[in-house]
């Protein structure tokens, strides 16, 4: 079933590129939700046909990832963005066109990286490593290119999604409890970030993180 997994990963790449190109906050958050949903299906598509991993484990992981990555977290972020009254990112550090170009460059770089680094285990999907590298790098691009708190959190989530892709090489070997613990950490992280965004919006009347520059030596 490498075909289905590769198709999913290709869609993940496309959503990633869309996010670095989009300036609308709501669109970014919705796209990261779509990316989360695609990734939630990944364990099932990759591992269920092989039968090595108990199906119950895979289903639990997928449902958990779907609920957290595609449900609760985006809802939290959309709410934060709405309450802060921000709709569109004005003047990011890196303009959106340049950001899209850089994103495309990072995807190419990832394809190269995945060719250079020989995967140690059996290859389960051709695009697994390239998509993993690309998603991590695109996440970093968001983190440095954007200055709104919400879009920075989207960058963090994309970085985390990339790590999740790499995690698929280990599917089934980490106990469910620990995997759910990792998801719970992510959820709490975004929850705390959401609260911080709310406070930033209240303190400064906007969520532009450039306001956060009073501490320096």
């Amino acid at each position, binding site marked *: 079933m490498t075909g289905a997994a590769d198709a999913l990963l290709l869609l993940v790449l496309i959503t990633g590129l869309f996010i670095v190109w989009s300036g609308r906050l709501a669109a970014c958050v919705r796209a990261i939700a779509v990316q989360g949903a695609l990734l939630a299906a990944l364990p099932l598509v990759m591992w269920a046909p092989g039968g*090595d991993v108990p199906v119950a484990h895979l289903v639990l992981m997928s449902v958990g990832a779907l609920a957290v990555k595609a449900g609760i977290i985006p809802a939290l972020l959309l709410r934060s963005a709405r309450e802060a009254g921000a709709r569109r990112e004005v003047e990011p550090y890196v303009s959106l066109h340049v950001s899209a170009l850089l994103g495309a460059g990072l995807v190419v770089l990832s394809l190269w990286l995945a060719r250079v*680094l*020989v*995967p*140690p*285990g059996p290859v389960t999907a051709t695009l697994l490593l390239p998509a993993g590298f690309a998603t*991590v790098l695109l996440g970093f691009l968001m*983190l440095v290119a954007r200055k709104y*708190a919400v879009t*920075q959190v989207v960058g*963090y989530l994309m*970085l*985390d999604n*990339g*790590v999740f892709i*790499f*995690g698929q*090489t*280990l599917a*089934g*070997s*980490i*106990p469910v409890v*620990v*995997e759910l*613990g*990792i998801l719970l*950490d992510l959820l*709490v*992280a975004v929850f*705390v*970030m959401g609260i*911080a965004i709310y*406070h*930033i919006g209240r*303190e*400064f009347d906007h969520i532009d*993180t450039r306001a*956060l*520059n*009073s*501490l320096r*030596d």
Partner: protein
Amino acid sequence: MEHLAALVLVPALLGVAALFVRGTRLQVGALLAGALLHLVLTGAAWVRRPDGYADYLRLDDVGMLFLSITSVLFAAVAVYAVGYLTGPTHDEPARLYRFVPYLLLFLAAMTLVAVTRHFAVLWAAVEATTLSSAPLVYFYRRGPALEAAWKYLMICSVGIALALLGTFFLGAAEAAVTTGPPGLALTDLMRAAPVMPRGWLRAAFVLALVGYGTKMGLVPLHTWLPDAHSQAPSPVSALLSGALLNCAFLGVLRFFQVCLASGDAAFARTLLLLLGFVSIAVATAFLIGQRDFKRLFAYSSVENVGILAVGVGLGGAATFGAMLHAVNHSFAKAGLFLLAGNVLRSYGTTDAGEIRGAVRQLPLSGPLLFALFLAIGGLPPFGLFMSEFTIFQSAIGDGRTRLGLLFVALLAVAFLAMAGVLLPMLQGESNRPPATARERALAVVPPLLLAAAVLALGVYLPRTLDTLLHAVAGVVGGTS
């Protein structure tokens, strides 16, 4: 296993319970009960090492060392915090319900870091330390505190995400050489390490060093540290510097243990030495002329985690020195931050330039601060002199004279830089009206005990601690 579970669950459950009550008495009760029970359980672990459950929950020598530091510091900080947050001098009504629950959850997370040998659990626990302590950094609802908390959250979360990637890389390296599924347990990883693909193992170590190194405060990933330490309430700063940085260091050490088992530790050592020296040098540069004395102590922490990295990077007897240094630095720095809280309370500013005559103004905290400044500067007879000298001696003994001399030279500059900021603060006539009340015991006794411990460690190392430190040094690449 029950013993270890209790160590984590007691503070966790008390913390959760404290989220739902408001009364000051109940909050104080929960905090002190959590600290005391944790101390008792840790003490019991010294008497009889608790059983574990696979590697998920297992207390080895390395964990024992860091668990003990955390437990002792937390007890001291808890007692101090009660006085700090409920005292008559507090500038706003005590909002303990915004403090105690997170502090207890923070303790539970740090304990989990120490009592696991499983890399996924370790990762989840380190991330939990960030999340539980971020509300503490933002305890004073001010713009700068918010800024510090935001940077802390974002920088450390991103760092930790890279550590998770490193953990997965390690799993991939394990999967390549074992027939069963990769388990990410330290015991299995160390067994499989000699045949693991080098590239993936090295990539895993680099990612872990970057990820956990961010949390540890290694330059150039330290940028969150001075902000968070200076904006957090002083008891929280004490815990961040004294206990949290060690927990992150433990994360790096776990990966280093796998590198050692693989027989390919030279690569990891070089990286540790490089980041260690860069941290010491950059921190020293920021110590010079630093105006904010809490930031001064924060940069001193960056310098000291650099010393830890250098000690482990050098290996041999220096590893023992680094482990001893972890204990010494934790106690001394926690004490300094608690005293910084007393000075801040008395003078109402963290600007060192506006403070004169602290020794006269605060007849107990002032001299104590001076003593701990000498200690952190590495002067005999304090413990930090012993640990830093051990590292220096080991470098010279191994024929790495230039590294050893560079080490001492940097420490000397750091000491002078700190003296330049702190001595004018402490000496002379006070520029504040004389204090009306004597200093409170709750504010002075915890840092006094910590200072006494640092002094005692410089004069005499108890046999049990010496044995433990040698055992720890033995497993993290030193001579035991």
